[in-house]
């Protein structure tokens, strides 16, 4: 598992609203909270 203090990897993924969302969108502008969850249609 990645550790505190490490650089986060770059990513670019499609979202459910048709957008390409990339880590580079947020550099110098916003913090990011990634909420990983096992599967859709399960409790969150």
């Amino acid at each position, binding site marked *: *598992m990645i550790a505190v203090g490490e650089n986060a990897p770059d990513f670019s*993924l499609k*979202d459910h609203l048709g957008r390409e969302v990339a880590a580079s969108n*947020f550099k110098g*502008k916003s913090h990011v909270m990634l909420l*990983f969850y096992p599967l859709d249609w399960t409790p969150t």
Partner: protein
Amino acid sequence: MPQTEALLPRFRAAHTQVLGVSVDSVYSHASWAASLGGVSFPLLADFHPKAELAKSLGLYLDAAGISDRATVIIDSNGVVQYVEAVGPPGQRDIEALLAECEKVDGKGTPTVDLAEPPGIAAGVLYVRSNCGPSRFATWARDNLHLDQIALSNVSKDPAAAAELERASGGSQAPCLVVAGEATTEHDAIIAKLVAAAAVLPG
């Protein structure tokens, strides 16, 4: 997800963009999110190549074929500031995670204030039954909580079909009509709804 959705203004105040991630497709995400009453923050499809992002963070559970239930907070310089995995059946404390984000924001890495989305006037989204693009446009409307955009199904209602013809000069659906302007093609419709209701930094 609904609890996180309700706290979005506070995450925004802490200069934090919330991103949900699972190995499901964008279609599954959109349908599921709409069924929850609408999720307006991005749900990322870590779908192809499967779980590339989860794997790069060491959060993929190979035997189960899913990611862990885990939270990673990354500051605006791209440095990981918080990691927690609670296991697939585990539960997250969103209020406590908000406090962690506020702590990260307090460290003063560069951020910009996000403008409020401009919104959109009342309008009508014309859709068809058994039509994938109509469904995807409807999910976007639902996920963005755009109740001022009425839904009108031209497959079920001849009057609606006549109204679509009048408003757009054609019979193509999905079709979004706002302030006399008709937009066809579901990706253009969704882009319009997103621009009105869900601004991302950058």
